[in-house]
């Protein structure tokens, strides 16, 4: 309980620092939401700034913003008329999250078994094949994989749509493109974790007791081998659920990922801040969950260890 209160307090502190830093950095970039190719008459610029309170002193804008955020209101978008940042996240996050869940599901289902196989057949051909594939998975960027998938499955074979978000068929290619890197990463982490665990004394002991390979792996080795994977899963899930700019652009998917980049181009201040807060909150929450899962996986890890340092 102590641990939780402690962690929650530090989470809010982290969020506060992030909001402040983002707010200052964002206002430091030249150009604003209403900078356009056609220079506006001064009166119109003034009308627009007044409407969005951009003519207030910066400290007041900051204070007003914090007050709104505290009440859960992330403000209106400057670019999209009459749409709030809350709306924007509400509409686009489920899309990114759906795609992300599919991608993470495949990453775990493929990555962990591949890592186990590679570890069990250490330095034999299944290991070499798995490591060859993961090297490709890590080094080939998502957009290349996406282009390749579109070319083969959409343009050549015509089995799947090339883009858009319309029904289950349209999730396949983007999910595959998105899952390449994390699958490879998870496979490698599982393999190295597994190799380390398999060489430990307690595994030798259970082996000596005559347990089957299957039981050794699933009951005794896997739990400990998975700790690095769990560490990686926290930020991975936060990153994948909030969408990828590249994949969403290539597949024309209405997700949240694109807003991370476009809002900065547009100097859409409230959107920049809103999704930064959303992402950060998700990330710190998942990191907290990861710490809790550690304790479940390995009773030697104590949650309030940090306090005694």
């Amino acid at each position, binding site marked *: 309980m102590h641990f939780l209160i402690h962690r929650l307090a530090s989470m809010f502190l982290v969020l506060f620092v992030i909001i402040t830093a983002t707010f200052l950095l964002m206002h430091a970039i030249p150009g604003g939401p209403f900078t356009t190719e056609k220079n506006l008459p*001064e009166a119109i610029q003034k009308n627009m700034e007044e409407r969005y309170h951009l003519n207030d002193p910066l400290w007041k804008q900051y204070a007003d913003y914090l007050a709104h955020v505290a009440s859960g209101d992330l403000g209106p978008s400057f670019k999209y008329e009459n749409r709030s940042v809350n709306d924007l996240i509400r509409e*686009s996050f489920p899309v990114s999250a759906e795609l992300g869940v599919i991608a993470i599901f495949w990453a775990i289902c493929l990555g962990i078994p591949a890592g186990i196989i590679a570890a069990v057949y250490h330095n034999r051909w299944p290991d070499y094949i798995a490591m060859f594939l993961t090297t490709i998975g890590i080094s080939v960027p998502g957009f290349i994989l996406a282009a390749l998938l579109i070319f083969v499955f959409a343009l050549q074979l015509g089995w799947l749509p090339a883009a858009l978000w319309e029904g289950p068929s349209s999730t396949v290619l983007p*999910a*595959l493109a998105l899952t390449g890197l994390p699958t490879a990463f998870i496979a490698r982490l599982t393999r190295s974790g597994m190799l380390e665990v398999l060489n430990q004394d307690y595994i030798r002991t259970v082996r000596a007791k005559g347990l089957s390979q299957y039981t050794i792996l699933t009951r005794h080795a896997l739990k400990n081998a998975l700790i690095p994977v769990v560490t990686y899963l926290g930020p991975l899930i936060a990153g994948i659920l909030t969408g990828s700019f590249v994949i969403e652009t290539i597949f024309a998917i209405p997700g949240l990922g694109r807003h991370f980049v476009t809002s900065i181009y547009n100097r859409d201040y409230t959107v920049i801040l809103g999704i930064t807060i959303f992402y950060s909150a998700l990330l710190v929450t998942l990191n907290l969950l990861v710490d809790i899962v550690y304790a479940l996986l390995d009773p030697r890890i104590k949650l309030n260890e940090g306090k005694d340092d």
Partner: protein
Amino acid sequence: MNWKNILFSIFLIAITGSLLTGCLTAQKSSKNALRYSAGAEPQTLDPRKSTGLPEANIEAQIFEGLTTIGPNGQPLPAVAEYWTISADGLHYKFFLRKNARWSNGDPVIAKDFEYAWKSALNPKLASEYAYQLYYLKNGEAYNKGFTDETQVGVNALDAHTLEIDLEQPTAYFLSLLAFHTYYPVHLQTVQNNDLWATEPKTLVGNGPFKITNWIHNSKIEFSQNDFYWDIDKVKIKSLEFILTESSAAELAMFENKQIDVGENIPVSEYPRLLDAGVLKINPFLGTYFFCFNTTKPPLDNPKVRKALSLAINREELIQHVTKGGQKPALAWVPYGLADAAGTADFRLVGGSYLQDNDIATARRLLAEAGYPEGQGLPVIALLYNTNEMHKAIAEAVQEMWKKNLGISVNLTNQEWKVFLNSRHKGDYQIARHGWIGDYADPMTFIDMFMSDSGNNDAQYKNPEYDRLVKAAKSASDPRLRMQIMHAAEQLLFDDAVLAPVYFYTRPLLIRPSIKGVLHSVLGVIYFKEAYIEQ
């Protein structure tokens, strides 16, 4: 069960499952809908507030102004059946069609126009495009808060008669009326609901189509507006606008038959698509140019500017770099604008003001300016906004200036809004620029270089130029007006304020079976009379 079997079956299920689910449900574009890739998610669909082309393209399907643009760019009667214009060109009277109706069945009345324009000018609405209505008498004064809305020169005399007073005679006012800022809005709906333009239910329009579904950042679905007065001409039953900014996705969707019409495709694919007969290159009212900061030495010397402009090989640039079938620009105002009513193209009448790749003259001018062979000339900085195509053009021009004139140029790129900020403030020597006309008249280009124009990034100040533009603006004789504008353009090139590069084109990716799509010179696409040939 053996663990190996379990793992193996997970593998199999994962791979085949993900592919199979997709294949079974794979779907091509909906049967009867015409699908158009429409670019970015619209910022707003309130015609009083929208500014961009993606928004204008959507609004052009669901709204209609007093006039509309015809196939040759001429204004045609739309909601207005006919009109009268006073001799001094200041007073217009429009007579609205009795059968013009909103998508909810209500008649389109003069009051809808009056309300739309006055509310667009209302400082509280804070519309970025309010200045498009500054032509109206007291429009600017009201927008700036100097007077109240009763003074604005638009009044509904009765349900079907609209009276308009202008600040000064405006020869192109009838074309302007086809522009989206001049569309009407449904008074009853808009008055009581600030959010009316965000929901298909309340987005009442008076155009050939109406929106039935809007999935943000994904697509907008349209069906016919049964109440539209000219519905007999509307043949497409349903229309879908796909919202994506990725040119690669757009091309892939076209080849996968997920879309039928598109505009944003990778330049490298043009030759192949032209050969395949699915790409049409339409004219577009815009000029790509390099803007000189006329206050920064050595560019404050017109001879240096002129030498730089002459030493660009535009033909070569278009053939090898831009490859979009653009026309070399040897003047400021692009093709596609009528000269004095009923006569030829403004550009053809005006001709060219410089010769492409005229290196001999360029060298002579540079020597006259005191920099023979470029000697003694400091390194010049060229600024462009980060983009592969702008970079390629800047590099080619850098090379041409080095080779032809011995001038060294440094290239700098900046992110779009940082770039705009630098250019507006005059914080550059030479900057990449592209100007797209707002309305179909040379004035949309000519008045940009007036001393007090907010868009005069060249910082060009010439009282003679200002005098000419003012004279053109108040001239009521169309022939005289055109003559003055030609003279102003001549002056612009005598002073070499800019180095034009090319006149824009607007490629249209379209299946050969689709006919009747109107693509105006301002870039707006109209699907009203589109049909699919069987």
